[in-house]
Structure formats: C-alpha cells, structure tokens
C-alpha cells in the first residue's frame, strides 16, 4: 500500500464515523446560531455605547465576523488529542499504536482528517454563509477567500502541532483535565478567539505578536477581513510565512518532545 492510500483510508474512516452522529452536528449548528445572536447583541450594545463606528480599526461587523468565525474555527479545529492520548496511555492501548507501520504523530493527524473535513463542510461552511448573509456583504468576497483557505489550512497544522506538543505531558502526569484546560485557556485568549487582538493594549499586543497562538485564529481572520495590510502581497506573504514558520518550529519541538517522552512508556502486563 502506498503511503497516500494509507492516509486517505484513515480520512475515509473518519468521514464515515462522523456521519453517524448527525444529531450532534444539527445541535452544534443550532447552538452556533444562538451563540451568534449572543455575540451580535453584546457587541451591538458595546458599539452603541462607545459613540464611534470604528474602534481600533474594527467596525461592528468586523468584530462580529471575527468573533463568530473564531468560534466556528474553534469547533472546526477542535481535536481531543490530549484526551485521546491520555486515554490510550492509561489503558495501555498506546502500545498498539506504536506497533503500527506508521508514526504515531502522523497516524493521529490522518485519523482526525476525516472528521475535520466533515466538520468543515457541515458546520463551518453553513456558519460562514449565515454570517455573510446577516452582515450583508461585510465579508469581502474575492481573492482573500483563497488566501483565507490557505491560511486556515496552516492554522489547522499549527493547532495540531500545539496539541501534539502538549499531549505527551500526559506521560508524566494523569491530570488530563488540568493540562487541557491550561492549554485551551492560553490558546483562546492569546490567539484573539475570545476578544480580537486589535483591542489588546499596546504592551500585551507586542508580547502576543511573538507567540504562536495568533497563527491559529488572528491571522486567518485578519486575512479574511483584509486587515493589517493583508490585502496586498507585501502584507499577505509575511503573515502566511509566519504561520509556516510556526508550523515548522512547533513540529520540530513536538517531535523532539515526543521522542523523549515515549521512552517513558511502560505498559504493565499485556
């Protein structure tokens, strides 16, 4: 079997599996709509109280699109790698994965790819369309959609690498919930998913610029909204380049950490 077929086999399996839970998709989509209403009313009230239409270069619609699509990206990218790995370690099942003719890191990525494709089609695209309609064309439709797609793909890889960097900690402690909540809180706050990075005070902004988290939410959304000069090649390429650099750096770090941590595995009995 060629390696491409190995990978697409896992993708297909994931797609079939997520088709099983159609109710979950419907409920998630419905909840996203209610969430959309919450964000809409909250920021409408905030902008109404501020007296100006543009705050830190963001209009009301910009902010809304940014935050709702951040939630949609969160749902789309959500991987439970930390949980999966901890469960595999505690049950001893991990040893079966290590014996497979594919590197564990690679195996995880491709076995998630199917559900990622499905959640993109079933929840991200509908949410995107609803936002585009509600904000009456405030999402610029042009080449930026293509660069957004590229940026989103890079965001996916960065997010996966962050997960894979954190997950092996489970080999050192059993505190899965704790590790996961620390990771999630840091990523969501410092990536702009909770509140757009444009609103951060200057000092905090400069710190966040040097961290990988904005590559997951802030950069793709900025590309989509054509903010921060990303509507020109001179602005777009450095943004995508930064994402690529983080993909590579985090991947190397994750590999090193995993190779080190995996030596700790001792499975009792068999």
């Amino acid at each position, binding site marked *: 079997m060629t390696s491409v077929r190995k990978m697409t086999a896992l993708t297909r399996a994931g797609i079939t599996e997520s088709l099983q839970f159609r109710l979950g998709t419907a409920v998630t989509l419905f909840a996203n709509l209610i969430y959309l209403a919450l964000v809409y009313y909250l920021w409408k009230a905030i902008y109404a109280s501020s007296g100006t239409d543009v705050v830190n270069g963001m209009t009301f619609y910009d902010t809304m699109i940014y935050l709702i699509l951040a939630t949609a990206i969160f749902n789309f990218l959500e991987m439970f790698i930390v949980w999966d790995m901890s469960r595999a370690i505690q049950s001893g099942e991990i040893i079966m994965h290590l014996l497979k003719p594919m590197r564990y890191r690679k195996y995880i990525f491709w076995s998630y790819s199917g559900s990622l494709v499905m959640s993109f089609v079933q929840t991200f695209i509908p949410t995107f369309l609803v936002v585009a309609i509600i904000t009456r064309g405030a999402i610029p439709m042009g080449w930026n959609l293509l660069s957004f797609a590229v940026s989103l793909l890079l965001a996916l890889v960065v997010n996966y690498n962050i997960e894979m960097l954190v997950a092996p900690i489970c080999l050192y402690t059993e505190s899965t919930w704790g590790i996961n909540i620390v990771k999630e809180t840091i990523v969501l706050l410092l990536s702009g998913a909770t509140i757009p990075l444009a*609103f951060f005070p200057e000092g905090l902004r400069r710190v966040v610029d040097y961290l990988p988290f904005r590559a997951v939410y802030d950069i793709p959304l900025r590309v989509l909204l054509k903010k921060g000069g990303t509507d020109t090649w001179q602005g777009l390429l450095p943004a995508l380049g930064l994402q690529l650099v983080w993909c590579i750096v985090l991947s190397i770090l994750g590999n090193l950490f995993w190779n080190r941590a995996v030596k700790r595995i001792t499975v009792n009995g068999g």
Partner: protein
Amino acid sequence: MEKSLRQKRGFLFYVSIYKKILLQDLKSKMSFRADFIISTFGMVLTNLSGFVTFMILFHNFPSINGWDYHHMLFLYGFSLIALTPVQCFFDNNWNLRFMVRSGDFIKYCFRPINVFFYFISEVFDVKGLGQFAFGLATFIYAWAHIGIPVTAVTIAEAVLFLITASLFMIALMNFAAATCFWIINSGYVMVIMFRFKDFAKYPASIFNGVFRFIFTFLIPIAFVAYYPSLVFVTPDNVPLLSWLSPLIGALFFWLSYKFWMLGVRKYDFTGS
C-alpha cells in the same frame, strides 16, 4: 419498622450521608496531588483569562448599555459566585453519560437513598473554591465602590439571591446531562450549555425581542446574574422578575430534577 426508617431519612439523614461521601471523595483526590495542583492552576487561569478579557473590553469601551465599570464588575463577581455551586457540587453530571453508557450507572439505583442525591454527592470539586474566592473579592470590591449600603437586610438579600441564582445554572446542567439517557454521545449538549454561562456576566437588557425571551425563560442565563443584581444596583426600580427569581429558580431546579429522574426510570426499564 419501615415507617421509622423512612422518618429517619429527613434532611439531617442526607446531610450526614453527604458528609461521609464527601470525605471519601476528598481522601481519594488528595492521593493524586499533582493532578489536584494542576487542575487548580487551570481553574485559576480560566478565571484570570476571563478577568483579562473583561479588562481589555473596558480598556476600549468605557461603558456597556449604561453599565459602567464598577456595575459591570458587580455583575461579573455576582455571576462567578453564582456559578460556583454548579462547579463544586454538581460536577459529577459530566460523568453521567459515561456511567450510563458503560452500565455502571446501575449501582446508583440499588441503594436505598435518592438516586440523584447519591450520584451528585459522589464528587465534590475542590477547584471551584478558587473561583468562589475570586468572585467574592470582585463582588465585595464592586459593592464597596458602587456604595451599596451594608445592612443586615442587604446581606441577607445577597445570600438569598446568590443561592437562588445558582439554581439556574445547576438546572441547566441537569437538563443537559440527563439528555444522555435518550441520546448517545450527548456530551456536546453539556459543552454547549456550559459555554452559554460566559454570557451571564453581561446585562440582559442588551437583548431584545425573541432573544430576551429565550435567555430569560428557555436558557435562563439572564437569571444567573442580571435579574438578581438589579435588586442591589437599581434598588428604586426593581422589575418583578428580579423579586420572583428565587421562585423561578426553585421551579427550574425542580423541573430539571424531575427530568433527570425521568431519565433514570427510562434507564431502569431497559434492563440489561
């Protein structure tokens, strides 16, 4: 004989049982000390992150819908305290779907005490206490800055309204958890409901029309902080819903309990 046994099962009987179960749970938790420390750190971090978000928001916008910084802080503190009981006492709801699926849930049905009580009392989540401390500090700070009088009446009101406000989130999570008796893999319902709580700290006056209704009566997050807070923030102009919130909270809790128990009965009947 049977009658005397039943008489014994009053409030005090359940309190003493709760103490015993709680002690066992704490003992087993303390044996995983690293987990305890990391989880507590994570919990403090989420509260800190919420606070940073709040500060960034006010760094850009001086007021929201007529609510200034200290009034918003009051709402925020109120919601944090009101969300503590669901975290501390009702955390086992998150395990319900695994128990039901694996069949381990049956053990709760064989004890001569209330199933809901037994299941819920099994876990006490210590890390919720950090949130309580954080919320209380914010609440007192905002209380002092707004200049709400400190009298026996206002303190009694604060205790009453905080406790009853907490019932709303508990009820929501009970409803969400109990869906697992009917739907396989219903974890997402809980995740979604839990996410709505982030909006409890904003004044519900920002909603209008249908959504005002939804967030007041269907997904009642407006009762977690907004309506009860009005009793303290605008004492001259308190809407009827604020005064009724303890009653509505009790009703919601009772309904969620009935729904939960309905699920248990359905579970019983499947046999296996």
